[in-house]
């Protein structure tokens, strides 16, 4: 692939910590190779800031392979930037050309307070999983793995839902800050599998309850979440969650 270099203007959200107000800071970055990843472009900038004795930009990242769900940048008004079904760590600079201006913000949602710069606190997601995102089975009790055949189609649908990386882009992309896509992905995965069946109702109820407690907004069927989800989690899962939740509400004692 032919590569090229470019100069860019970056407008990046800076915020010292949760208790201070933030603002945009503008940087000119030079000689950025089209072969770099978006985060490597930030590495180059940060290296320069360190050398200039300034505070580098803080952001979450770890695997840089699109699977851990740590990276979380809102780029030019889009969660994870311009590419479809992609995390920002897998965005590459060939998406840009010389002279472009790029605006980078953290996830914006009431339930994801900013820790510093582009880094936010997503522990609400852990607490939602705590409320029921599992099968209650202790180690050592399992039957032989092939004792219970599972329809391949169902198992694949469960896998598709289980592919969620817990990044929170769905929340950031939603004008209401709803976490329905995230919650529905886990509820669906386990509802589709026989192992998850015994706890279906209580799981849906408890997870939705926790989601509300954490202050996530309501789902308005806008579907920005699906459009921005790096793993292509489908809004069909939300429909499934609603069904599970309704049946749980009709038979609350079960």
């Amino acid at each position, binding site marked *: *692939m032919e590569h090229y270099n470019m100069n860019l203007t970056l407008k990046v959200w800076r915020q010292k910590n949760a208790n201070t107000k933030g603002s945009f800071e503008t940087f000119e970055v030079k000689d950025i190779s089209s072969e770099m990843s978006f985060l490597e472009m930030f590495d180059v900038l940060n290296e320069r800031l360190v050398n200039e*004795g300034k505070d580098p930009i803080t952001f979450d990242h770890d695997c840089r392979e699109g699977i851990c769900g740590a990276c979380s940048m809102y780029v030019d008004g889009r969660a994870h930037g311009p590419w479809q079904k992609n995390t920002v760590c897998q965005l590459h600079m060939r998406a840009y050309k010389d002279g472009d201006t790029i605006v980078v913000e953290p996830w914006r949602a009431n339930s994801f307070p900013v820790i510093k710069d582009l880094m936010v606190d*997503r522990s609400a997601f852990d607490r939602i999983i705590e409320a029921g995102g599992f099968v209650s089975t202790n180690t050592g009790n399992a039957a032989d793995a092939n004792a219970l055949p599972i329809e391949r189609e169902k*198992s694949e649908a469960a896998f598709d839902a289980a592919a969620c990386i*817990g990044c929170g882009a769905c929340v950031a992309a939603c004008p209401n800050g709803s976490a329905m896509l995230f919650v529905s992905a886990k509820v669906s995965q386990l509802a589709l599998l026989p192992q998850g069946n015994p706890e279906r109702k209580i799981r849906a109820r408890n997870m939705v309850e926790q989601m509300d407690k954490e202050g996530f907004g309501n789902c308005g069927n806008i579907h920005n979440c699906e459009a921005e989800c790096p793993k292509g989690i489908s809004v069909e899962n939300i429909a499934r969650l609603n069904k599970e939740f309704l049946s749980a509400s009709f038979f609350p004692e079960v």
Partner: protein
Amino acid sequence: MALDAKIPGGEMAQKWANYKDHAKLVSPANKRKLEIIVVGTGLAGASAAATLGELGYKVKSFCFQDSPRRAHSIAAQGGINAAKNYQNDGDSVYRLFYETEKGGDFRSREANTYRLAQVSGNIIDQCVAQGVPFAREYGGLLANRSFGGTQVQRTFYAAGQTGQQLLLGAYGALERQVALGNVTMYSRHEMHDIVKIDGKARGIIARNLVTGKLERYFGHAVLICSGGYGNVFYLSTNAMGSNVTAAWKSHKKGAYFANPCYTQIHPTCIPVTGDHQSKLTLMSESLRNDGRIWVPKQKDDKRKANEIPEDERDYYLERRYPAFGNLGPRDVTSRAAKERCDAGYGVGTTKKAVYLDFADAINRYGKTEAHKKGFQNASPETIIELGKQVVKEKYGNLFEMYEKITGENPYVVPMRIYPAVHYTMGGLWVDYELMTTVPGLYCLGEANFSDHGANRLGASALMQGLADGYFVIPYTIGNYLSGEIRTPAISTSHAAFEEAENAVRERIEKLMNVKGTESVESFHKRLGHIMWEKCGMARNDKGLREAIEEIKVLRKEFWENVRIPGEIFEMNPELDKAGRVADFMELGELICMDALNRRESCGGHFREESQTEDGEAKRIDEEFSYVAAWEYTTDGEVLNKEPLTFELTKPSERSYK
């Protein structure tokens, strides 16, 4: 100190059962009073914390990421082995054990490896019960594939996201215990030291990465499950945050470090593009089932891959290893690529890459499909179209990832790949119970040295992490903790905590006060460069000696000239990184010392002085059939040896010809 591996008596196949029958137990009432610290939430740590919580212990779990679900295990792609023999193709516990021993070049402890094979089947049962959506056949039963050139199909997988699915299963189990109050989770916390009282591990000092404050935690036992140290090479397939700090600090407090020079270089990774490169991306080994590896026969060939005719291509693996061809083990395959590139046959702009070509596979599958569909005289275009569909079904997500990173379409042009640091077989020395040389301090998962000898087979790390956490430690820890039921929780105002915390604080202040001119990143890169050039795929006496000196100089420079911006009491990733890089430098030196000491070639460790006439690795069993366990003393590192004995296997030459 004489190393006692505490291997139970009896026939190999009975050892683990014997152990479990006689291990001491802790009553439920006593378990509630016993506290366990688990550092790490990858497959090893999450499975251990969840299971120990289920048993009723009070567990404190730590990770440096913002959520336990993001531990590096999440990135594992290809699969997990288990000797289930579901395919009825002749697999057995013995066979998995034997292949692991042989794959590790007969440098692992038989009893541990055997146990690993024995519990492997339980892992799959457990994961399925948790709702892990493994790939299945149309009949609804679990699917398997062969991996890393084994002759049986024993690898279970969930598309190219096996690690993710296994970890999310363990993470769910962990969060369930958090909800029940049995586990307390400390995310964004980094362990900086262990605390020892009367010779036993009794707690840790951790830094809260959000506030920067140091915190003290007590435990009757401490489990290190902090993953591998591949990032000592700067560039690797590991996650950016993967580090050796927890293991290294344990080492400095008395835990021996075993076989640090055993590092695995994975043959199929996306090559480096330039100086900006921050990490390397693995292309799963499964690709070698269908891709053919080649370079041009002509040196410095400027033509595009597709312009080079068939007879001007050198399929060097098929040429050198006719029996295994493209499916040889990782170490052998990696070295062969390096050999071609060093000789001037590499491709791409940097000339440090070889082709991984799917054209043949696409053609072959296309023909089969056309035949299945009853197309007579299908045109070459149709065949290629049909073939691409098959390849897409098998490897679609990998091809997509490759295209995202490189901007090239691997269905049309061959992939370019090069070896990269991937996994570390070395780690803290542990006995059969997974206890280090410090009583009460355990080590699980990639962080220990235990099961893979000098080279790990594909799909066996996930197996080991989960074996250690779900099925080994829950039994072995009771044997120790049963002796601790009279020890009440020790207050963290104890002098030992005070002292440890002060030492950690002083080191952090020292780092911040250097106020030099060079960034942490720059030092890390320089360290990586030394390690890769002189202690990478091929090592020799002269180079290793130079590396040791160069690292010493670099370390001195680091402590005199590193620049860390920001403050201590805030979120400060540069400071976090500085601590990790400082530890990597110390480890790097030990790796080189270990490599220098081991004057044989075995597995991932290739000493140029020890090779056969045709350039294959040569083991020297008479001299080096031991585990090198390094002891940290004030006078430097001291070598201790655990001799390896072979009851079931006979070390033989590992030939893949």
